[in-house]
């Protein structure tokens, strides 16, 4: 009999532990994120797509602007996944490269700006929770995540130009380097 009681108690304990975890996240994380989301959603709605589209036309000519500045701004202003749509202002050849950089930008800036990719926040939050558990501030980590991300995402975007050339040869396709206006 004791065995069954222990088993039942042990079983319930698993979910009590889970519940405690859930409660600590809901009270500790949700309120701040909601406040930030409200502000950033409003900024995105007011400034939004037109501003970024104007910037995009200036940025296509230069690799640093193309893979570091533009995706950073797009991610910040439009969030995931709309930031990826800014690739439409690029010539076909650069679209995969922009994609490679912009998708990473939707993660590396997430530490400071959770509105960018709220649905995949736990990549950042999961690890940051460990830092919080040690009683340390997560801001230095978030800042470095963003800065290293800026450099690393630029490299990833630029490197994609080379892999794209490689795949072009493999498949015998040549993508246009010139921007064509939308059909």
């Amino acid at each position: 009999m004791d065995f069954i009681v222990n088993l039942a108690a042990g079983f319930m304990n698993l979910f009590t532990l889970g519940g405690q975890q859930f409660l600590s996240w809901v009270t500790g994380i949700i309120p701040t994120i909601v406040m930030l989301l409200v502000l950033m959603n409003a900024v995105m709605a007011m400034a939004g797509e037109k501003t970024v589209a104007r910037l995009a036309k200036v940025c296509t000519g230069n690799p640093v602007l193309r893979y570091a500045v533009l995706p950073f701004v797009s991610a910040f202003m439009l969030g995931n996944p709309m930031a990826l749509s800014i690739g439409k202002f690029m010539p076909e050849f650069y679209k995969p490269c922009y994609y490679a950089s912009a998708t990473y930008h939707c993660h590396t800036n997430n530490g400071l700006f959770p509105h960018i990719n709220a649905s995949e926040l736990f990549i950042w939050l999961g690890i940051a929770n460990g830092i919080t558990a040690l009683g340390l501030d997560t801001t230095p980590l978030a800042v470095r995540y963003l800065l290293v991300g800026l450099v690393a995402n630029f490299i990833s975007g630029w490197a994609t130009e080379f892999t794209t050339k490689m795949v072009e040869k493999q498949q015998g396709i040549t993508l246009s380097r010139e921007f064509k206006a939308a059909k």
Partner: protein
Amino acid sequence: MSDYRSIRVEKGPGGFGGPLTITPTEQRNKVMYITGGGAEPECLAKIVELTGLTPVNGFKTNCPEEELALVIIDCGGTLRCGIYPKKRIPTINVMPVGKSGPMAQFIKEDIYVSAVTSEQVSPAEGAPTPKAEPKAEEPQNTRFTADQKVSETLAKQENKSLVTKLGLAAGKVVNTFYQAARDAIQTCITTLLPFMAFVSMLIGVINGSGFGNAFAAILTPLAGNIFGLVALGVICSIPGLSALLGPGAVIAQIVGTLVGAEIGKGNVAPQLALPALFAINCQGACDFIPVGLGLAEAETETIEVGVVSVMYSRFATGWLRVLLAYAASFGLYAA
């Protein structure tokens, strides 16, 4: 060849939405599937047989949106499940996912159905043609009417007074923020809270049952030093595998939470949090390439090249990102 027939698709167990009636036309005669890194979903064969639609693999190629009668996806609830409903293309999700993700508001019963297997697909009887979008009504002269708020009527007047302008501007700002708040709460309910609940349950079971120690034994050597982290990054970004690890970033988020737990317990140095953030996400968005490029209005060849190219570049630069982060992590949380 005008041999197209309509089908009826219902939601499966635990699914959402539908029933949808899919009616192919001369122009809309293709079904695109973007599932499991390019594997054919189980229901595809029956759909093709019943409708006469041409199947298109979204991972290999793309086709113009005007030709799509139907899209089949296997989205875990973040992005893909909202993108096609947003474009008003009928969408079948083989996963049991309801209104979820940043585009949850577009996922409606009349355009989206989930948890579909071949059992939910049947020929439609007396299929109705899809209704045309309701046309916007002609704007009427400005008079206060019962179906229009005062503010809406005022906004349509041509010669606005200063007071009206001020009032409308203030109203717009307030409304923008209010909508922003609604969206924020919606994001919480549709994506953040469910994920927290899911991971909390896992963590409870893992910690309470003693599995946690076993996980730690596996993870600590991987996440506890830079060589392990580089190896983790390389493995995550292997082309092909990277596309399978991608959906919803669920795997990366769970691994992140587990590594975070080890940092919290002191088994992994806090300094390594920075390279770990890069290592667990080297595969970032490899599952999403065709859709993402579609958002950028890429042409078919671009998608064919881009899918392979981005996977290669992820593999080529993944380890570099981890090392870069490691180099930048010195002095972080130094005692």
